[in-house]
């Protein structure tokens, strides 16, 4: 039985890696703009479909991964700069902005549905035979996903910590007014954030479908609640927190699935969020209502 447990934990780490890539992108976006972006999942879907199309024309899947990320970045910038700004100019409040992103996600999802004829497309790339280590059985691509997540984590962390733009971003996230007053070009900071988080979003979409081996219009939307939960659980804007929360949620999900309760596995992941919320609301929901929109 403990072998099963170890195997489930390993599976959880793989799931957590996918989740972490998305949660990092989400938390980055959220901490700066304060918009709880419900169209994040739809952008993941867009990235995944781009990667699928690359596979259809028989180009290397690596290109698909890169272009999926680029597609995510482009879509996010268009949405952020084009649409959300339009609403920001109309003094749409923070909370209404979330409703706007929800509308966007409906539009994107069902446009993708219309274009994809509501079909599910198989996407089997980079699969190889399994490696066996005791009770753990993983495929090379899963190991690759975990490594990718680590690389993304270190790269993002490094960029935030050591580059000028990273510092500017953190300053703007904490105190946008002050940052602007100090001469930080907040507009450019926001743009860079859209690009970076959008890239991570698209990337997460591709990684997700590499794992599921199929893509359809609900791909990202179904995954989004886990992403939001991980980002909130980890503390908004907290990169390491997002990764830690992803690990907890991934492992719990797979352990519950491993116990034969597949239907309840995702539920268990969310249950953690609820429990934390019940026990220590302050720890998770520190922010106040006065946060302002930064676009």
């Amino acid at each position: 039985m403990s072998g099963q447990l170890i195997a489930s934990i390993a599976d959880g780490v793989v799931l957590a890696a996918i989740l972490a890539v998305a949660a990092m992108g989400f938390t980055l976006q959220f901490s700066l703009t304060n918009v709880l972006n419900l169209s994040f999942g739809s952008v993941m879907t867009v990235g995944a479909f781009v990667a699928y199309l690359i596979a259809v024309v028989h180009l290397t899947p690596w290109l698909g991964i890169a272009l999926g990320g680029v597609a995510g970045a482009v879509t996010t910038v268009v949405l952020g700069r084009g649409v959300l700004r339009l609403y920001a100019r109309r003094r749409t409040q923070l909370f209404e902005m979330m409703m706007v992103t929800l509308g966007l996600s409906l539009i994107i999802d069902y446009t993708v549905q219309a274009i994809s004829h509501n079909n599910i497309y198989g996407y089997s790339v980079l699969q190889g035979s399994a490696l066996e280590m005791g009770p753990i059985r993983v495929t090379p691509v899963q190991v690759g996903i975990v490594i990718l997540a680590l690389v993304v984590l270190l790269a993002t962390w490094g960029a935030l910590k050591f580059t000028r733009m990273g510092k500017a971003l953190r300053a703007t996230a904490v105190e946008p007014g002050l940052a602007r007053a100090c001469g930080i070009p907040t507009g450019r900071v926001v743009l860079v954030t859209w690009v970076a988080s959008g890239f991570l979003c698209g990337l997460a979409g591709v990684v997700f479908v590499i794992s599921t081996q199929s893509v359809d219009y609900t791909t990202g939307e179904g995954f989004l609640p886990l992403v939001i939960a991980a980002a909130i659980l980890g503390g908004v804007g907290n990169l390491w927190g997002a990764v830690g929360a992803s690990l907890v949620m991934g492992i719990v999900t797979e352990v519950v699935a491993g116990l034969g309760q597949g239907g309840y596995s995702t539920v268990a992941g969310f249950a953690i969020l609820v429990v934390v919320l019940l026990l220590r609301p302050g720890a998770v929901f520190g922010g106040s209502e006065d946060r302002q929109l930064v676009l």
Partner: protein
Amino acid sequence: MQPRKLTLGAALAALSGLLLAACGSTAATSKATLNVGGVIAITGSSSFEGGNLFEGVYPALYEINQAGGVLGHKLALKQVDTRGDPADALPAVQQMLATTSNLVMVAGVDTSSAPTIVPVLNSAHIPMTTVAGESVYDQSPYPYFWRLFPPDSANGTAMALWAKKKGYNRVAAVFGSDPGSQGDLPGNVQSLKALHIPLVANITLTPGQSSYQSQVNQLIAAHPDVIMTEADSGTAGTFFGELKSLGGLVPIIGTQAMDTPPEISAIQSALGPTDFQKYMSMVISAPSQVTPAVTAFNNAVKGDASQIGVSVSQAQQNPFAVVYYDGMIAMALAMVAAKSTDPKVFNSYMSKVCNPGPGKTVVYTFAQGVKALNQGKQIQYFGASGLIDFNKYHNSYGNQEAVSLTSSGAAVPLGTISVQAIEAVKVTGVA
């Protein structure tokens, strides 16, 4: 208050549009087109059911219209989307009943909506040919209900019998939690019990998960020698892809529903063509020997390839499509035999034109049937799916067969499970 007036105006305009559309469609002329309602899930999680229907009904309509139609009337399909949800299906069907002139029959009614919709159609005197698998219709009280298809439980039993015949004795059941997939499970599980075949794992897959790795590992740990399965194509693709990557492939027996184009392409893509042929088999309604009916069906699919969303060979392979095709042809022949397009008249002719009997002329195509009827003969339509013999509950189904598919999509018959053997397995009260 300008905006308020504007919107009220818009609302009124919309309403009058509604009424106009209704009036327009009730104006009937002689030899008008007869409408067939395709009441099925076209969108939503059961949207594959719509594909199955179109792949069978459009070729049938093509063949009938090519042969001059029914009593001079052309036939057309009106798609009605149930979204696989009775709450959506009810107004959709009532709208169809209200606005469709010359509605002569309905094909379809997906499994989820059937309990709500079948009584509605029955009381509107609209005959329906359906593949809804619920066992409640094994003894259907509805005279306008016709099923040329085994109930889900029979398919589950046939799978168990096939496993016994192959000598498997560690079975794992892997079923999706969607309504379609859950249909076969109880019959399958109970039959295994009745046949004393141990079920070593019973795994339910919730659709839309990022990975089923834990379930795969659980399955491998149970060391089954065969997997029985049905799940929607996305879920099945993910699960079997992971099963293969993790080196856990054993022979797989799929239900009838796994022999449909989206499922086949998903699993083929997940397993690769070689392993697909090696490991995957399905238990389906036994295709008949190549009779003229089969040729006619194949030709009709080819003739109307533009209407169906999949390749010709995929549609020809689809066990659901062929049944929808047969139902349609049989119903059309019933109209010709009754010399009436009034459902109240021709409904009772369904058994008369299909069931075998002394002195009946066997016909394989619509054109043959019309010709024989015009000569005053009694006919028996022998369908592309084989013999049709309705019992008093308007159910007809025959032997089942295990098949595998070559990489080119051709079926390789592996063995037959007779309907007698299926009925001999006592499975009680399953859906």
